């Protein structure tokens, strides 16, 4: 038995030697893979692959480049600038290296075959070790890929489910929208009905109110005339009871375009076709306009200051605007009801019980109507959101949909990076400070779903708008693993996710380890 084994070992060893010898003595030019051996004759002539030239076979690999275009006559030397050299690398991946790396003093092939002519350079053969390590690495990768693929399948399922839920929700919302519209109409009808009753009841008090209003108007008219007279006298420099054009030229608020000259055009806006203005014509034709100019003039400085102050928060404006819209809606509603209640307040004490009840009913109808409107808007907003979400590309199988609404953080030496996939990327200094937007969701760089682009981030000083690429790697965890700024204001995040364990890995894995013999 022992002899058998030792014989076997010997036999194996001999085979191994034979293989080694065979591979060494095989008649093929240096630097050529087995698959191309038939292209190199052992007698007669060799023709460059591009057909440009035929040379005697013994000029193959003679360290002189005859096939200048494709380098095919010198696969085993560095003679041709565009050639390539094949390393066998038994035990590891075989590969081509550029001819420029042959005999340059650097061991590029793990079997050291590229430095055959350099006595001053000793290349070991570490293909077995490297091959072993590479195979282990490959195995690890494959294992991870397999595990990751499983997770990915789940994520696809989850993604589809999320999308389906969103779609279902959308259907629901569409239904809700109809209901809400109906409700709004119903409440509106009711409101109108009650308000009509309210109006009738209040008409009784109208005469009294009219009287009161007239008094108020007269009061305002006198006040206005007094004010007009004040300005008129101020403008009527020579106190002759009329304003002429020269007098108006002294008053710089009329310089509407601020060129320091009150032009004929600008005067015309005050005088119309008249040459002079008496107080009466001044009051009737020009005063309203003049009053505006002066009012605008007075608030000018305040406004400028205001603008400058708000300028500092310029970057945040965009985000605020959206919120502002919402606020506007709410405010509109509020002011409407406020106005209503104001009129109510004025006349409250004078109403009898019945009127009061009618008003109360009207108020409650209005409030119900407002609620219905608000409800409808909420539904519409959610529809819009869901539609936007559904319109984004979450990968071939929606495998990335699970990231929607999630955010991930990563801290390096100086900053904390925050990635909210399909939404935005931002950065904030570790020691506190303002958050900087590095981009909002743009698109996938290509159809391989490996690289995301977030664009239109905040502007750089003296530079472009910031943007961020997010590179996706297959891994079991979902996390950011690296953040960098390869170029000014262009950021790169490395993001691990099982969703990236897709066909790309399957193509790369299990590549040829054919130990060519």
């Amino acid at each position, binding site marked *: 038995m022992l002899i058998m084994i030792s014989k076997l070992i010997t036999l194996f060893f001999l085979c191994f030697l034979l293989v080694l010898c065979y591979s060494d003595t095989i008649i093929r030019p240096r630097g050529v893979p087995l698959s191309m051996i038939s292209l190199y004759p052992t007698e007669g002539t060799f023709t460059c692959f591009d057909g440009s030239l035929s040379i005697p076979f013994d000029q193959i690999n*003679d*360290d*002189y*480049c*005859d096939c200048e275009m494709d380098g095919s006559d010198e696969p085993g030397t*560095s*003679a041709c*600038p565009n050639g390539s050299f094949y390393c066998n690398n038994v035990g590891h991946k075989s590969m081509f290296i*550029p001819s*420029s*790396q042959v005999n*340059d*003093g*650097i061991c590029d092939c793990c079997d050291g075959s590229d430095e055959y002519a*350099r006595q001053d350079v000793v290349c070991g053969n570490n293909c077995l070790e490297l091959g072993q390590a590479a195979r282990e690495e490959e195995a690890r990768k494959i294992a991870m890929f397999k595990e990751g693929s499983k997770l990915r399948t789940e994520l696809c399922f989850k993604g589809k489910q999320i999308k389906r839920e969103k779609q279902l929700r959308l259907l629901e919302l569409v239904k809700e929208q109809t209901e809400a519209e109906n409700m709004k109409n119903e409440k509106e009808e009711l409101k109108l009905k009650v308000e009509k009753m309210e109006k009738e009841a209040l008409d009784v008090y109208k005469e009294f109110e009219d009287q009161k209003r007239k008094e108020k108007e007269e009061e305002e008219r006198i006040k206005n005339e007094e004010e007009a007279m004040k300005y008129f006298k101020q403008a009527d420099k020579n106190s002759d009871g009329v304003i002429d054009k020269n007098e108006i030229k002294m008053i710089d608020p009329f310089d509407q375009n*601020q060129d320091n000259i009150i032009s004929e055009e600008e005067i015309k806006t005050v005088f119309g076709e008249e040459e002079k203005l008496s107080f009466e014509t001044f009051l009737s034709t020009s005063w309203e306009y003049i009053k505006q100019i002066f009012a*605008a003039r007075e608030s*000018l400085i305040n*406004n*400028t200051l205001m*603008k400058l102050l708000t*300028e500092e928060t310029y970057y945040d404006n965009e985000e605020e605007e959206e919120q502002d819209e919402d606020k506007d809606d709410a405010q509109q509603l509020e002011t409407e009801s406020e106005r209503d209640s104001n009129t109510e307040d004025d006349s409250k004490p004078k109403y009898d019980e019945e009127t009061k009840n009618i008003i109360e009913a009207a108020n409650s109808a209005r409030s119900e109507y407002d609620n219905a409107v608000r409800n409808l808007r909420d539904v519409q907003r959610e529809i819009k959101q869901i539609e936007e979400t559904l319109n984004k590309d979450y990968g071939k199988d929606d495998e990335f949909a699970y990231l929607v609404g999630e955010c991930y953080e990563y801290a390096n*030496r100086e900053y904390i990076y925050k990635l909210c996939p399909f939404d935005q990327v931002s950065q904030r200094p570790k020691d506190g400070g303002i958050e900087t937007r590095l981009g909002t969701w743009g698109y996938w760089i290509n159809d391989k779903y490996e690289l995301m682009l977030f664009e239109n981030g905040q502007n*750089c000083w*003296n*530079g472009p708008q910031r943007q961020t690429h997010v590179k996706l790697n297959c891994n079991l965890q979902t996390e950011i693993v690296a953040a*960098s*700024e*390869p*170029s*000014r204001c*262009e950021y790169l995040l490395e993001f691990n996710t099982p969703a990236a364990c897709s066909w790309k890995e399957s193509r790369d894995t299990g590549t040829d380890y054919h130990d060519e013999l």
Partner: protein
Amino acid sequence: MGVNYIIFNHFILIFFFISLYHINAVDRSKFKTCDQSGFCKRLRASKPELSPFKIIRNSINVSSIGVEGSLVNADTEDFYSFLLQFLEDNTIRLRINENKIIRHRYQPLKALISEPYQHPFETIELLDDYLFFKIGSIKVKFIVSPLKLEIYNKDDLVIVANDLGKFVFEHYRPKPETINEENNKNGEWEERFHEHIDAKRFGPMAVGMDFSFPGATNIYGLPSHADSVSLKTTGNTDPYRLYNTDIFEYELNERMALYGAVPVIQAHGLNQTVGLFWLNAAETWVNVQKLSESGFNSNVMEKIVNLVAGGTKLVQNSGMNTHFMSETGILDVFFMCGPSFYDVTRQYSRLTGAAPLPPYFSLGYHQSRWNYNDQDDVKTVAENFDKYDIPLDVIWLDIEYTHDKKYFTWDPLKFNDPESMVHGLAAKGRKLVIIIDPHIKRDFGYFLHNDATHRGFYVKNKDGNDYEGWCWPGSSSYLDFLNPEVNEYYSSRYLLENFKGTSEDVHIWNDMNEPSVFNGPEVTMPKDCIHHGDWEHRDIHNIYGLFYVMATYDGLLKRSGGKKRPFILSRSFFSGTQRYAAIWTGDNMAEWGHLKMSIPMCLSSALGGISFCGADVGGFFGNPDKQLFSRWYQTGVYLPFYRAHSHIDTKRREPWLMGNETMHLIRNAIRERQSLMPLYYTLFYEHMQTGAPVIRPLVMEFPKEKETFDIDDQLLLGKSLLIKPVVEADVTHVDVYFPGANEIWYNKYTYQQVKTNGVKTIKISQNEIPVYIRGGSIIPIRNRIRRSSALTLHDPFTLIVALDINGTASGQLYLDDGESFEYRNGKYLLLHFTFLNNQLMSKIVDDGRFKTKAWIEKIIIIGIPNMFRTGIINSDRGQEELEAKYNTDEYSLTIRKPGVSVAVEWSISLL
């Protein structure tokens, strides 16, 4: 609301305008005009008239030192002494200093390679009216009154010093008790510039003199200016200014001062070339005029001519005058009498030295950026060069590699393992160049600042305290390299045990050495700062940058025990910088105009003795488009220093980042460069031997062809390659001027011949720029492209033999180990090739004691008739027959694989 909006818009507009201004042009108000520089205003105003100076006849003493004597200013009765010396190689030196030495005047003698010595005269005649000397073909008349120095070569009057009587020497004088408008009319005692006040404790002390060149039509030299090679006349503009400064976004076609100052000119006319070297390190202005426009009385000139026996007639409309004005120093001027252009560049290099052989790698391709982010970035960039199979010799690190801008330290996070980074590069034969600047961060946690403070190593302000200025690190002080102790200390910082993380594969970039001071007057150091030896900064300003690189050179030399050649890049330079460092054209811009300007700027530097010059490929500021970028790479191949560099605010632009097509164009350019390195190296060897510039304006090779005198959009590499860079977008044709009546120029890529003498329109593609090989030359190249030039050391050579109209050619190849000084011990190979009578011969010049395995791979003979089928080689291997193949389209004969070692002599006969 409307009003608001308008106002707001105005703010944006104003801001926009400021930014635009900032981006497009230098802020001129930061730099002085001649009128704002008191002494320039004073001296420039001196009118052409009879000089009040005369030689005191009985003071003359002729000795082995030279001719000494005294001068007097008849107007002021101030006395001066002069020393006139006749140096080797047709060179004359005149020094004038004041007699009453209240305070010594600074002489920037470090610019000189050694103290030149007096040669014996052949004839001396001391007449009443003039002193007459003759040495070889050079005759000198030193006219007693008014003072004038006339130099004749043979019988041509070639130089007249003080021709227009503009010699001024402001002697030291006691300081008035009060400085007022009367005694400070032109900034004699105090000069204000913006918020800066220059206290002139020694008062006015300027020197100036004019020099006429009767036979000259063109003046060259005075680098560095962003201007044409042939200097413009400055009668109606400010003079050329030499005052080293860190100028932000410099403008083109300007006489404004830039980073470097080389006060040397060449005056050229159809008959001969002469030169003048004004040895002064203070702020200097140079007025350039045609004699005919100088208001000069031509009768006087006639008289001068008649005085000479057999005097020649003046060439009509020729004659140039230059007026040199310096703020301090003595008058120390060297007249280089040519008579050829090459004689003048050699004569200058005998004074200030030539560049020693640079390490071979430094002639390769350099990849730089402000900044590679970290050591991984460096590694990735280098790997990508391999991935795209583009040669790369050096990666550069700008200031961000340091720990908070403290030089001689590494950023502990981004560059925590510099040894591995350097080792990784070196494993592929590559080097690292890192930046080290002369400003020192004022941080008491910084050893260098502590040492410098405690040992008094800093430049002092006028009150005697350490001067503080603002630079990259913030508050900074500046080491005083005039102090030998500082040099000793500083150079030791480079020892490998002191500068951890470096190795002999790390070389140095000295930037900001004008010195740059962000908040200083004219972005540099105040003139009233005090240096070692009680010199004011104004005395030494232009040579500070040279002192700095000398310390660095010393340090790099020391760290290898004197064995390895240092490589240093310096931004500031002065006469003599070529002995220590390469230079570049500073912070240029990604614009076609800057690409175009890189040629005249480097040609001027080369004429000023500094051949090792380049421009930031791609442009430092801004983002080049693909076309500009690839054209810049194609042009950069033909300037001696080949580095791509970019500002931190620009987009990344490694060669592969602008698409495949651009990558291929760039790759071809860089490969072209690597293939030409044997030629470059040989040219640098020749430069070291003869002072001949590596790149040359056409006028140098064709001095009798006046069409060449103003050409600076073309250049010659050595004398054998003619290059016309493409410096405009979307061009399909360019006009190339082909010099020489009996020349053949061969297209470098197609070998097509041009025999025109004059302009010819050449069709071009994006793939290359017009490059022509001159008939008569033999060019050694290496066709095998490697990852770095260090890996080509054993690779074979290809010879391109371009025949002239007589069917002959010659050339040289120099090689050695590329990194040590062993060549000084004879360990080099210098081969001389000749092609004559259908025979190519390689002769070894000198000993040839460098051992190499390199061999001759291929010989291409172009411009040869189709009559040879074979070559018989005779070498140490005996006689062999070589295959030869004729290409009828190219008129070229390729000899296949001579296979002979370059270390033996051989000959090939064509049959």
